[in-house]
């Protein structure tokens, strides 16, 4: 395992952290979240200019050919700032899937635009009864001439509100397939809402949506392997992000313990609070280790080994996030639960991340399988 950042990664970390520090202050973020769009189009453009959107893409597609570990550094920094731009849905999930499963034509059509910040993507897999399963879906795609007709309901689709193109999974004759569906295609309905972490998601319904043969992404009936890979990338990214989030939350809590006084002294002088803080720092360190593991395995082709590493990481990070999140709120007292104070927002994001790409129970079972 490689524990030191490469020069590129160091540079990326500096860039992303600076961006978060300068452009993602509490009030700045509040304004972005409250805006009609729910994210900053301006920042999105900057991410493109800084090369963050094409980081992992081939140079042929406007990217810089980086690794998942490079991406991880950026995502962790985004986690520090609770960034709400649809990076996860567009870059980690969408572009990752197109890169892996797309035809040359599809890649050419999509990836350069993603890198340039001109196209956003979303991955629609979840359904009302699917829970975290990729297989148990009811959305169907029927052959219709040389194309397909899609019908179904996709649940809690991250970034569907901002996506130009939705990658949807659907049952085909003998399995599950993926389709590229323009968000503005006829019969697509997108009901948008904020998630607990202020990122937006949507219920997406397909009502006789017609797509052409070229909308098929990857092999017909054979999408599951690609979907699993995408979800593992998503889970790995969430681990990186959660690490950034819990690191800052620990910093906030430590600071609060030093400055808040009760009974005539800083509350950080009370041994019980000291030990809880120690456990929170330990939890962060354990998470950091598993994030390393997840980042190294996120793009592995060996699905079994990848799944084991990612699931192990998601369990540990989930565990750590709860220790840090709940601990932070308890140590802050009431103030941590108010919307005007920053800590509660970190807690909300950590809570949300537990429910994304499989919770601890899901991943523990998968790991133990």
């Amino acid at each position, binding site marked *: 395992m490689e524990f030191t950042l490469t020069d590129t990664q160091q540079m990326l970390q500096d860039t992303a952290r600076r961006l978060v520090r300068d452009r993602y202050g509490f009030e700045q973020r509040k304004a972005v979240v409250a805006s009609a769009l729910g994210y900053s189009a301006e920042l999105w453009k900057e991410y493109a200019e800084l090369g963050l959107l094409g980081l992992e893409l081939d140079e042929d597609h406007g990217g810089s050919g980086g690794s998942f570990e490079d991406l991880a550094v950026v995502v962790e920094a985004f986690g520090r700032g609770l960034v709400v731009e649809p990076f996860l849905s567009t870059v980690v999930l969408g572009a990752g899937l197109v890169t892996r499963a797309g035809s040359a034509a599809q890649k050419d059509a999509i990836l350069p635009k993603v890198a340039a910040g001109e196209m956003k993507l979303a991955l629609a897999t979840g359904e009302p009864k699917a829970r975290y399963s990729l297989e148990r879906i009811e959305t169907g795609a029927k052959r219709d001439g040389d194309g397909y007709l899609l019908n179904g309901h996709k649940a*809690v689709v991250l970034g569907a509100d901002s996506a130009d193109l939705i990658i949807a999974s659907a049952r085909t004759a003998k399995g599950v397939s993926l389709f590229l569906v323009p968000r503005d295609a006829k019969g697509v309905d997108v009901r948008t809402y904020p998630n607990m*972490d202020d990122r937006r*998601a949507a219920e997406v319904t397909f009502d006789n949506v017609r797509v052409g043969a070229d909308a098929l992404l990857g092999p017909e009936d054979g999408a599951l392997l690609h979907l699993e890979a995408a979800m593992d990338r998503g889970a790995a990214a969430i681990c990186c992000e959660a690490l950034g989030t819990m690191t800052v939350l620990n910093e906030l809590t430590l600071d609060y313990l030093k400055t808040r006084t009760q009974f005539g002294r800083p509350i950080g002088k009370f041994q019980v609070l000291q030990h809880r803080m120690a456990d929170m720092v330990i939890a962060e360190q354990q998470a950091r280790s598993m994030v390393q593991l997840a980042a190294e395995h996120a793009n592995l082709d060996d699905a079994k080994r990848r799944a084991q590493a990612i699931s192990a990481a998601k369990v540990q990070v989930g565990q750590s996030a709860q220790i840090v999140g709940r601990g932070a709120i*308890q140590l802050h007292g009431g103030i941590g*639960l108010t919307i005007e104070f920053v800590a509660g927002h970190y807690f909300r994001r950590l809570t949300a991340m537990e429910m994304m790409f499989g*919770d601890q129970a899901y991943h523990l079972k998968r790991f133990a399988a």
Partner: protein
Amino acid sequence: MELTYPKEAQDFAEQIRAFVRAELPAAIKQKVLFHKRISRDEQVFWQRKLVEHGYATPGWSKEHGGPGWDALQRHVYDDVMSEEAAPPAIPFGESMIAPVLFAVGTPEQKAHYLPKIRTLEYFFCQGFSEPGAGSDLASLKTRAIDKGDHWEVNGQKTWTSLAQYANMIFCLVRTDTEAKLQEGITMLVFPMDLPGITVRPIITIDGGHSVNETFFDNVKVPKFGQIGEPNKGWTYAKLLLGHERTSIARIGQSKRELRHLKALASEQESDGTPLMEQQAFREKVAALEIELAALEITALRIISTAGKGHSPGVEANLLKIKGSEIQQRLTEMMLEAVGPYGLPFDTNKGLGETNLPPIGPEEAASLGPNYLMTRVVSIYGGSNEIQRNIIAKSLGL
């Protein structure tokens, strides 16, 4: 698992159950079940129903206008009310300031306040915490100066729950700045519409508004509102908080939530079978159910042995600690049960203010906010750290 009550208690339970089922509007019940906010009107409406049928202020003796029930009856009452999802009573009046009035109120004060508390004509809120006085409540700084016929109050309270609904407040104020911290505090009761009172909402991370900051700017509080003797307020506050700690265990509510959790997990599918059939989830629920049963028996045991030489202090703290831990675990597991549908966070929906169709299962909408806000139960009413400090102290440590 269900504990069995003695025959008389069972009959009593049936009587209450029949009343609630007949009188509680379905819309209110639904709000309680789905963790939505009960409006002031609904709260008052329900309180009047209780008064009408003799079920209000269950903890009050007949002398004060209550039903004069014994502790087991009160437990059964709370159990059935919670099971049937009746709105919980607002504690500030009937369970917090009223017991202080019973103990040290003048006959005039009792005659004036108690009937109005009973009907919720006086809707109380609590002015204890301050920005600089949380766990260390005795360091409070809100100042009251004796002006002969009134106290002049200046300062700031925070976390004043439901101040936006309240028309009355009870406050701890500093009346002697020379004395030891605990010995210079007085307890006052006064209307919220006195000149100089400003209430500013605090929005919490569930998107809800249940707490406030309350500012006092030269507020003139008539002497009639002074409770007991000046500078003895700390003693009265301890009496009052002791009451809060036992009811704060919310055993009845947790029993209802446990049923709710089981129902929810039976409807949710995981890998093609109901989540509730998955062994790991099932055993997590079972472990919680056992702990809750133990807590309920502990509560019954405390009730039954109260005043027989046991130390009620430790036991009330125990109820608060375990009760709050169980409440939190329940919210954690309910959120887990709905999977990705715990994510949508339409704060309007979560709080029942709009009439759009729900996103995902109807129960899901409130579970995120409910999880977030239930972190407060190990913080308020004396944090669990403070509770353990108290236990250690009563163990002689």
